[in-house]
């Protein structure tokens, strides 16, 4: 160091006004400031959603359908129903698909070139813009069936859930100690028996955590259902018709000029945020308990 000086005092304490120490302290201050700045939007969003959304949080919110413009009251019932349908379909499609793929990657081809390639494609798939996934399903399903539907919305959401589930399930499976597999094989189990009877149950908490997180994320996704589920003002009978979802309703009512609808948009946001908050805290709890 060029600025080394002979010891003036014999103390080992740093002089707080020496340029190097000063620089270090200022930078520490800046780093703290960065962390504070990063947390501010989170707190602001949570507070505003809570304050504006909580006034409509009652039973009507869940049992009544969305109000037309200039009509008071109403609820989010049909949007919740649509969310349940689309996310349900997405989960039914993405979870078996993703877990099977994860079994292949972690049990049969782990650490091979093929596994790396598929892992790479999975990561790239998770970076595909959600609106492009919506466009894809529009052309593949909506144009083919000639109707917007809860089903096509669900498939679009499944595409977004798939890479998340593959990744989390692969990680969970790879954490299962190989002794368990060896023991199962040693007892004469086939590969199917080993996976279904031993490895999957052992990895279940991790897999469930991943599924929970991706379900919460899918419930909040709007872009993919924008022109696959499209929206519908009241209850639906089956999954082959247009439907509204919570996220679609928040989008449409947020940009509507009617205070009643805007309030419902805040209430819908509150439900979405609560869902995310609860699943994330639960997931954290799950993960901590395991270790």
């Amino acid at each position: 160091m060029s600025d080394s000086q002979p010891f003036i005092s014999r103390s080992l304490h740093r002089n707080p006004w020496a340029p190097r120490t000063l620089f270090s302290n200022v930078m520490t201050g800046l780093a703290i400031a960065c962390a504070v700045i990063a947390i501010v939007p989170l707190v602001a969003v949570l507070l505003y959603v809570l304050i504006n959304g909580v006034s409509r949080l009652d039973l009507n919110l869940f049992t009544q359908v969305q109000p037309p413009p200039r009509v008071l009251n109403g609820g989010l019932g049909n949007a919740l129903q649509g969310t349940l349908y689309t996310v349900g379909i997405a989960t039914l499609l993405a979870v078996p698909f993703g877990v099977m793929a994860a079994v292949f990657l972690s049990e049969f081809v782990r650490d091979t070139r093929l596994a790396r390639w598929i892992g790479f494609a999975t990561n790239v798939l998770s970076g595909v813009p959600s609106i492009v996934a919506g466009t894809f399903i529009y052309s593949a399903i909506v144009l083919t069936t000639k109707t917007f539907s809860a089903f096509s919305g669900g498939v679009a959401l499944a595409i977004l859930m798939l890479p998340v589930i593959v990744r989390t399930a692969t990680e969970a499976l790879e954490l299962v100690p190989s002794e368990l597999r060896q023991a199962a094989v040693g007892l004469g189990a086939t590969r199917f028996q080993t996976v279904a009877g031993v490895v999957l149950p052992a990895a279940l908490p991790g897999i469930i955590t991943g599924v929970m997180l991706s379900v919460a994320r899918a419930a909040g996704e709007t872009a993919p259902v924008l022109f696959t589920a499209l929206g519908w003002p009241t209850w639906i009978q089956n999954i082959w018709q247009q439907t509204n979802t919570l996220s679609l309703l928040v989008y449409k009512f947020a940009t509507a000029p009617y205070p009643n609808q805007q309030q419902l948009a805040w209430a819908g946001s509150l439900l979405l945020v609560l869902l995310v908050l609860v699943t994330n805290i639960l997931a954290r709890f799950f993960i901590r308990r395991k270790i």
Partner: protein
Amino acid sequence: MALSNQQVSEIKRARSPLARQLDNGFVWLTGLFAVGVALVLVAIAIRVGWEALPAIQQFGVGFLTSSRWDPVEDIYGALPQIYGTLVSSLIALLIAMPIGIGVAIFLSEDFLPNKIQRPIVFMVELLAAIPSVVYGLWGIFVLIPILRNMGVALNAGLGWIPLFSTRPTGPGMYVAGVILAIMILPIIAAISRDALVAVPPELRQASYGLGATRWETLFKVILPAAFSGIVGGIMLAMGRAMGETMATTMVIGNANKINPSLFDQGSTIASLLANQFAEASGLQISSLMYAAFVLFLITLIVNVLAELVVRRVRMKV
């Protein structure tokens, strides 16, 4: 005690051929699903590209350089949207990059005891989990009023700079930039933190041992060592910002124009799709597919590069 090959094949033969075939079938089935995940990516490219074909034949590369979007005359060009996509992501990166790296440094070094550090890491992660549409709602009713006041002041004082030359009316490119910055900050922070934590502790100890202060160590040793990982994180964040749809659509104003002023309204490829797709028909749909295909290709390139960089870092660890 390894079994000899002969013993293994004897054990295998002990099973009925059907059981063996079923078991092999299971492996094949899982393999099919795994390859299927990769094929989804290919299917998206092919399907969206196929639907875009009429517009590609009609407008060719001119689609990317024309700024006319006219459903009445059936003439389409997406330059303002491409411009808006790049500029809004750039604003977001300029804001989120320093803060995100700062957060990553703060949460990777020993500034804080573990007990306090972990909740903060969790909170930053939570920032990424909040749905985009909620950010949009918050942006409309909370962020826009705040930013408009700041914007009016900037316009009054520095209006001679083209960047601030229009009076903000509410929604606009700058609001989209700020919202995107909030949304990509956790990605930059999380990946940069991974890269910083992965730097071997010996480097740190050696640097401290030579008498360097904490920040000299950070700037001269740790950040250079983690550089490629941080760059990868920034690129992933950029890909995310370019594809982000709902929050952007709700606050950017959706105007089909290019204006150097950040306070003016604009649009992005994603917001164009969100606004027009449901009501489009004929060549307009094909043109929207073309726009979606362009967005897909841009984000694909960015993501593949980012993934390669990040992967190389992970391999080293």
